[in-house]
């Protein structure tokens, strides 16, 4: 198992290296395609050529591309100094670059916005995983019952409705019409845990409604397939309780695809839940990346892309490792 994890970690590093090279290319392709100067993007409105030259020196934009990339990689591990004589900025490791717009290390921007995204993603993930699998199991056990049909109907609606619709309806009814959860805004968990949960409830429900629907359908399909397997019949024939047959044998096997998709979904959400953040007015990684795109803040685009890629590949790795625990048929050697 350890060997397997080590092998996969090496692959993770290789993948991130490739992603970093590709996204680093953005630095040179975008300004070339739009006939703009990278330094001018940093320099604000109508900069003089002197200012642009100084910025090019400060950020090493005149160096050959491989040298610039090397400095970038070096910065990730040991930090970096941006020096232009009078103005010296230190970017500590892991330095993912320096924001053109906010003039701060990209890592600082990401870590500042990350708690919002993590709070939304983790809470919603717990909700949708519990609700989705529970509904899926119950639907499978009561196949073609009223509950099954109603649950799957709601699931279909959940998958079909975009998050900005569900979110706005929830905000409109619960926040503004009924005043049950007024003034939804992000509060840090360390500031006030109760307020944190209260304010995140609507984003959690919106996200969970979208994802739980899919998980319910997947769980139901997996359970129906598994319940028809020979080993389930054998388990029942051996006299095991129905609870044990469902919980220990049927559900574990049905969970394998759920775990796979859960890892990907969670990884993706941690890379930024853009629509949810915009709908509820939260400022997380999604907002950071959209703002960076609009402002052509290339270092932030690069940093967030790498960051999101890291979450997704790590989530994949964790999922693969979890297989061994979830599904008794999987063994890594």
């Amino acid at each position, binding site marked *: 198992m350890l060997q397997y994890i080590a092998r996969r970690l090496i692959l993770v590093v290789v993948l991130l290296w490739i992603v970093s090279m590709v996204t680093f290319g953005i630095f040179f392709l975008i300004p070339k395609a739009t006939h703009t100067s990278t330094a001018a993007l940093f320099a*604000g409105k109508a900069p003089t*050529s002197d*200012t642009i030259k100084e910025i090019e020196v400060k950020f090493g934009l005149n160096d050959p591309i491989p040298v610039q990339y090397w400095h970038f990689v070096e910065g990730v591990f040991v930090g970096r100094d941006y020096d232009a004589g009078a103005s010296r900025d230190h970017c500590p490791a892991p330095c993912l670059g320096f924001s053109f717009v906010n003039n701060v290390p990209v890592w600082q*921007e990401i870590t500042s*916005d990350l708690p919002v995204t993590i709070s939304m993603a983790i809470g919603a993930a717990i909700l949708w995983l519990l609700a989705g699998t529970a509904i899926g199991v119950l639907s499978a056990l009561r196949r073609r019952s009223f509950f099954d049909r109603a649950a799957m109907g709601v699931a279909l609606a959940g998958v079909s409705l975009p998050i900005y619709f569900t979110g706005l309806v929830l905000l409109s009814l619960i926040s503004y019409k009924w005043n049950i959860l007024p003034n939804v805004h992000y509060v840090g968990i360390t500031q006030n845990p109760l307020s944190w949960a209260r304010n995140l409830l609507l984003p959690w429900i919106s996200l969970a409604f979208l994802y739980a629907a899919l998980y319910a359908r997947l769980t139901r399909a997996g359970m129906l397939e598994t319940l028809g397997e020979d080993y389930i019949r054998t388990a029942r024939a051996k006299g095991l309780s129905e609870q044990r047959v469902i919980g220990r044998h049927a559900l574990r096997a049905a969970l394998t695809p759920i775990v796979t998709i859960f890892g990907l979904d969670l990884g993706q959400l941690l890379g930024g839940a853009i629509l949810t953040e915009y709908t*509820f*007015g939260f400022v997380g990684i999604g907002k950071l990346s959209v703002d960076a795109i609009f402002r052509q803040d290339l270092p932030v685009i690069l940093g967030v892309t790498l960051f999101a890629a890291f979450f997704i590949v790590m989530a994949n790795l964790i999922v693969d490792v979890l297989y061994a625990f979830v599904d008794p048929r999987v063994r890594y050697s």
Partner: protein
Amino acid sequence: MRRGSYRRRTLVHAGVAVSAIALVVSGCGGSSSGGGGGKPKAAANVFNAGVTGVRNVSTKTGGTLNLIADGDCDYYDPARTYYGHCWDMQRLFSRGLMAYKPEPGSAGLDVVPDLASEAGTSSDGGKTWTYKIRSGLKFEDGSPITSKEVKYAIERVFAGSVINGGPTYVVSFLCPTPTNSSGGCDSYKGPYKDKDPNHLGLSTITTPDDQTVVFHLNTKVGDWNYIMALPASTPVPIAYDQSSKGGAKYTFHPMSSGPYKFASYSPGKSLTLVRNTNWSASSDPFRKALVDKIVFTVDTNDEDIDNRLINNIADVDISGVGVQVATQSKILTNPTLKARADNPVTGATRYIAIESKVAPFDNKDCRLAVQYGISKVDFQTARGGPIGGGDIATTMLNPAVKGYTKFDLYPDNNGAGDVTKAKEELAKCGHPNGFTTHMATQSTTKGKAVAAAVQNSLKRIGINVIIDEGDAATYYSQFIGAPAVNRQKDRGLMYAGWGADWPTGYGFFSSLIDGRKILPQGNSNYSETNDPKINQMIDQAVGTTDPDAAAKIWGDVDKQLMSEDATLVPMTYDKALVINSTNVTNAFILSSMLGIYDFQAMGKS
């Protein structure tokens, strides 16, 4: 000053524009030496009450003012910010030598002394300006504010690689040697590279004593008191700015000289201001500092912002760009909500620049064909109609700018376009069947909509317009800011918006039509207008210290531009529909701040 998708800024509301202009023209609007903060003109809570008067007049102190917007300020460093509403925010914690008078209507266009005990005076017709600073002023850390901190603040603007983003007029006028071809100053590079051990090496600003600062300009500038009302004249403590917290990081906690100071700031998310105990009301000519705390929160959902304002959860949307289309209908159809709303002119003129170096627009008759043939009504509709979009424009100078004179040289059926007359002009310019040209526009929803409106209206006279879309973030500075590229790409028409950095003709026109300011990059004279007569009139107006006489010249510049050059087609004077919570007191539109409310005057009921 930036606001939304246009560059720079100006003032006032159309409903009061006529009276405002009358005041200005008759010489009643030009005082710059009086104090502000007189008795507020209370207004009943009806539609547009905050444009001409003050809503909910009150002296009640205490409470928290909750500000909101869909984005953070560009910078809080007074030398770097260029967003109109952020200049307004600066009034809460920054005090410059001069400031805009805190009054609604045309009075808000005037500047009054702030840190200075009286408006700057010039003994040589506008080349040397002297200011006396009030005594006993302190920064939030208790250190004294002297003339040296004012000089240092101005010096920072010269350090382009560190302090960039804001206006750089002071560099042009205070560079000890002529500025280089790109507008930079070779002889002084700012206080971070200063050879003077005290970082006060700029020879063109002298400080004979702690209370006196003298500016030795390289040319006569009649508007210098307005330039000193820009945030960059806010003093900056030297030791603090030279420390690790200063320079490019100063924006994260500018040292307050005003009634409020930074308590916490989370970039892109929120800002909390609390009372600055080292500020004294007795030293301030107009700020009342009614509330105890000001919290500004970024909310990414514009619809949610509108709901928060309507439901009194948030107090003011500082961006001033106006409510969303759906909310606009809701407000206008609900008498209670409408009575809470204001619809000020934001001070910007939307226009189409005709590139005079791109054939066939090098022929004036072809330009006149566009002046007559374009449909301003369709353009107005594409921008959101009379309420959300603005009033139809017939002059480049905005009604809110001093010097505005109403005229219409190209009558076009109330903005619908005069196709017959346009075709006549086309025949005169040798293209009776029209021609094909390119038009630059922003790749935003409104940018696309207005380009389509122009395309359709010019199609009626046979001009085939091909639309080139550019990214909004770099549209002005780079997409249409390089004349050579525009010529190469055959861009005969360019969509643009313009508001002055201060509400005078110079603030409005200086970069827009001065032929000597056509830059290879970052150019703002998109039409490449270079009329010797206009250039000469600009010089004459710039050197005129009498505001009324200068205003008259600017009005003439506008007429000369429209009649002889016809290189710019004024389309609309921007307007926005705005609403506050009912808890806000002393709310009025500050004309000089892009038609945004004066935040510093506000209290809570």
